[in-house]
């Protein structure tokens, strides 16, 4: 086995030889640096340019087609009510795992006093969880969730039923706009450990092309659009 530096040099040298270029070629380096800095956009689907209620409707439609349950809740109070009733619909006990997300913490939980909330990463016994998405792209009903203490990644994958809250004002049209929002939070070229783009509940079609929910991740996903 080659030593690490030799292996690295071997691969990069072979690439440069194949391309017929030199490592110190200034023009190439500038081209690369420029492109990374500018991160130009390509073609954006026209459906991603819908605005306002049309945009929310697109997100809702996409998520629903992809097997999620979607609810529009005008106020935080109704959000809590929707969460409680979803647990009932899924036949789950009123227990919820969530992170330290302040928006979620500030929901009027007294309106659903019987929900037992626990915090932190998901544990194997957790059956329901609640997260908040930082942004969603309506073009394919895709919610962007980021790792960290606010909304631990495991909340999105271990429990059977997952609820994601998204503010209507955090719904954008295109993936590109969504990433700009993420960049605004973390800075250019920096990302948290995980950014999950979630567009529905877990599913598989591996067996005879029959779609079955809950392959490994949640079998049910509720998306609550607040506002």
């Amino acid at each position: 086995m080659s030593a690490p530096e030799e292996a690295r040099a071997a691969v990069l040298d072979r690439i440069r030889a194949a391309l017929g270029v030199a490592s110190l070629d200034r023009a190439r380096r500038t081209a690369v640096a420029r492109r990374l800095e500018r991160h130009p956009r390509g073609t954006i689907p026209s459906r991603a340019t819908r605005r306002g209620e049309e945009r929310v409707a697109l997100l809702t439609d996409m998520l629903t087609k992809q097997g999620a349950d979607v609810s529009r809740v005008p106020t935080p109070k109704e959000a809590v009510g929707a969460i409680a009733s979803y647990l009932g619909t899924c036949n789950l006990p009123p227990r919820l795992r969530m992170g330290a997300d302040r928006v979620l913490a500030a929901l009027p939980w007294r309106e659903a006093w019987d929900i037992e909330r626990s915090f932190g990463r998901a544990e194997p016994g957790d059956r329901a969880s609640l997260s908040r998405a930082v942004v969603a792209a309506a073009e394919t009903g895709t919610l962007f969730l980021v790792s960290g203490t606010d909304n631990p990644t495991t909340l999105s994958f271990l429990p059977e039923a997952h609820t994601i809250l998204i503010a209507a004002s955090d719904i954008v049209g295109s993936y590109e706009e969504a990433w700009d929002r993420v960049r605004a939070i973390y800075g250019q070229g920096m990302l948290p450990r995980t950014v999950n783009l979630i567009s529905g509940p877990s599913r598989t079609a591996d067996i005879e092309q029959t779609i079955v929910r809950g392959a490994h991740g949640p079998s049910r996903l509720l998306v609550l659009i607040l506002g």
Partner: protein
Amino acid sequence: MGNGRQDFKTDAAHALADTALQKALQNVKRGFVDKRKAARAKLPEFDTLREDARAIKDHTLSHLDLYLETYERKVTESGGSVHYAPTAADARAIILKLCQEAGAKLVTKGKSMVSEEIGLNAHLQAAKIEVVETDLGEYIVQLRGERPSHIIAPVIHLNKETIEADFRRAHHRLPRERRLDQAQYLVAEARKVLREKFLAADVGITGANLLIAETGSSVIVTNEGNGDLTSTLPRMHIVIASIEKIVPTLEDAMIILRLLARSATGQEITTYTTFATGPRHDRDPDGPGAYHVVLLDNGRSEMLGNEFADMLRCIRCGACLNHCPVYGAIGGHAYGSVYPGPMGAVLTPQLQGIDRARDLPHASSFCGRCEAVCPMDIPLPDMMRTWRERDFARGNPPFSERLFLKMWAYAAKRPLLYHALANAIVLFMARRAGASGRLSRLPLATAWTGTRDLPAPQGRTFHSLYARARRKGRP
């Protein structure tokens, strides 16, 4: 395993006679083909996106060394480590060492064609590390000791009765009277069985659909969420990816992702698309403490400089397989390679050598459907033909074939000789066919007449008839 010509023809014959497989292959033709068509119809910008995607890949490949350097720097900045692997053996050794250093006894795996390419599982298992595939299809082929038969749908070749039998055999501790006759029961059982493995794993290994230079991120797409449980729960996450997976920016990644699922299964996007960057941050309550990326070359850098460079644009969507009449007739296993179908016909000779894999580029009618549906505009038939040229130049075709071709070419370059011979041949054939208009048997033509009659020639060549007509004054 693809040891040469004999295996392919034999395997293809078995596949053609396998009624269960033939039935299952209908799912490919009906399902994926129709769904992709529908997805394309719903996205008016589909073809423009293909142009964008091609341009992104072409730009990246022509600056591949620099983007890899940038990527490596960003991974390191984010607390991860990058390991270059010139060969498959290098990659296996690196990954084994990382697993051993982590004290790993159990490894979970997300779906990775590259890991199959390098034979990773067997290597780890030989070192007494338990390896569990977590993608449901990959889990099933692992139970069966088989290869996946399709790069996107590993068990498209199996029916649920077969899978039930596999589960009963492998999960023998579970109650015998349990129901497994529906897909939902099989999935529920897999979920339970694999959940234990997810939670107990020391190391999680995934592939990467994309690597992003801008942020040092690796991207995986799944519908199941198994890739996420694999990469989030264990204390170490290892990514194995070939070097051409890299794209410059997040925007570039999304252009390609707009095409990937639509081309593969007709979905607008997969349920989960995950961007992983480095290990967990200090205060993260979950996530791996260590993140390693193994960058595999294994022939890619060579392809950059030869006639197969365009193949490096491949995003492994499987559309070419789905639309290929040959794949649709014989399925994936007959190809004897990790990569079947048209993309496999181009990539496998590069990986295994044309001598061993010569059937793959030859077993094509060049119908061109693969090229027509490829989101990355890869000229697959042209590259298969280039392999045929290399094969021919090495003198690989059987003597009788080369002789026949030489004789034919000799005549074809000499019109008078050709016309004279042609007249004689068609006269003979027409006489032999008589009034029937067809030949069901003909010496030297049993390959055709085994299954098809040969229509009889009309009796004289066009050139002789035309010359005769002109002599008689007709135009």
